[in-house]
């Protein structure tokens, strides 16, 4: 057996982080066929033919995703180790729900632990990302 997490990191996609190996911290979050998953809990054999998006695929070339821009502007990243997973969780949340309220943001990020920020700047960043996405689509 091989974990999807290790397979991705062996491909030098090291933005996928291992924080706990037990699906608790969310640092290894990726999008697997469009759904947020913890890659530490997914055996590689179950990811055959799947479309995978890691943090490396969130920006379009030099152009950052609105969530990434907002995380920088609003202080959503501190030490950065939870950030790739947190950004993907936020991207996934906004794809499902472009205008989440506070409770929905909290629930959407509940599987991604951050020890630095106390989450407040992250919530702020998600709201800011909503505004940026709205402006982009106008």
């Amino acid at each position, binding site marked *: 057996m091989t974990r999807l997490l290790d397979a991705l990191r062996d491909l030098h996609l090291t933005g996928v982080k291992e924080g706990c190996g037990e699906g*608790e911290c*969310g640092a290894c979050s990726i999008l697997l066929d469009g759904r947020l998953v913890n890659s530490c*809990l*997914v055996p590689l054999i179950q990811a055959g033919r799947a479309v995978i998006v890691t943090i490396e695929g969130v920006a379009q070339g030099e152009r950052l995703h609105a969530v990434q821009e907002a995380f920088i502007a609003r202080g959503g990243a501190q030490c950065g180790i939870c950030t790739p997973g947190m950004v993907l*969780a936020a991207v996934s949340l906004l794809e499902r729900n472009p205008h989440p309220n506070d409770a929905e943001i909290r629930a959407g990020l509940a599987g991604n632990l951050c020890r630095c920020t106390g989450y407040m700047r992250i919530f702020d960043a998600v709201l800011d990302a909503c505004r940026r996405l709205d402006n982009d689509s106008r």
Partner: protein
Amino acid sequence: MRGYFPAFDLRAPKDLPAVLRMLADEPGSWRPFAGGTDLMVLFEAGKLPPGKYVSLWGLKELSGTVVATDTVTLGALTTYTDVLAHPVLGAEFPLLCRAAEQTGGAATQNRGTLGGNIANASPAADTPPALLVYDAELELISARGSRRVPYERFHSGYKAMDLKADEIIKSITLPRGRGSWIQAYRKVGTRKAQAISKICFAAAADLDGQVIRDVRIAFGSVAPAVVRCPGVESVLRGRTLDDKLPAAASLALEHDIAPIDDMRSSASYRLHVARNLLIQFVSETLLRRTH
């Protein structure tokens, strides 16, 4: 990471018959592996037994939801996210939805399955109390054929269940028509999200005026398996709601559950909170509804 990869042989056959053949050919040597949200946690801790595992993920025969006139049937691979997205479940089976939304975070909800939650047989699992309240029935399948088992009789003790070595859970069927029942679900976890239950409570009652026509009470994390509470139910069933009923139900509860101390909580806390939740259901949820 304490698991040793080469000691784990995980195969992913292309369809259900292929899986069932593997299970039939070498009974007991292949263990089913669904979304991995329990087994991979054991692997990390070095507690998953090395050996042969067969992946069920993606098998169409175990997926999907069938809504019939009298029942809803959920494939064993129905994820928590699937549960939360289904309008009929949201309207008629709120306890199951509450359980699903309180299981892990979004990533766990995308991978965790109802069948896996049942087969993992944890006494602290979140959906089983709801399934007990809804009189769920399981369809078990093997190369020999399939059979149906009331979920209430499925778990027989700690991690013990009525599942043969060559069988897997195919689907879960819930009877409809309980939309008018008064229902309550409360997970008391170690925190508000990503938590394992310290006590999990699910209840439903069918009232006829002041009389409890029928009732289901179930708990998680207070016994070697998730339990329904026959003693409490028989105290409540057919009784008229009055001020003495909560205490009587609470008294009966002690015979239905057997909580223990562990690293997450204590026996006395569990007993106390289980009583409080039951009393609250009878004295507040039900009584308030009748006034």
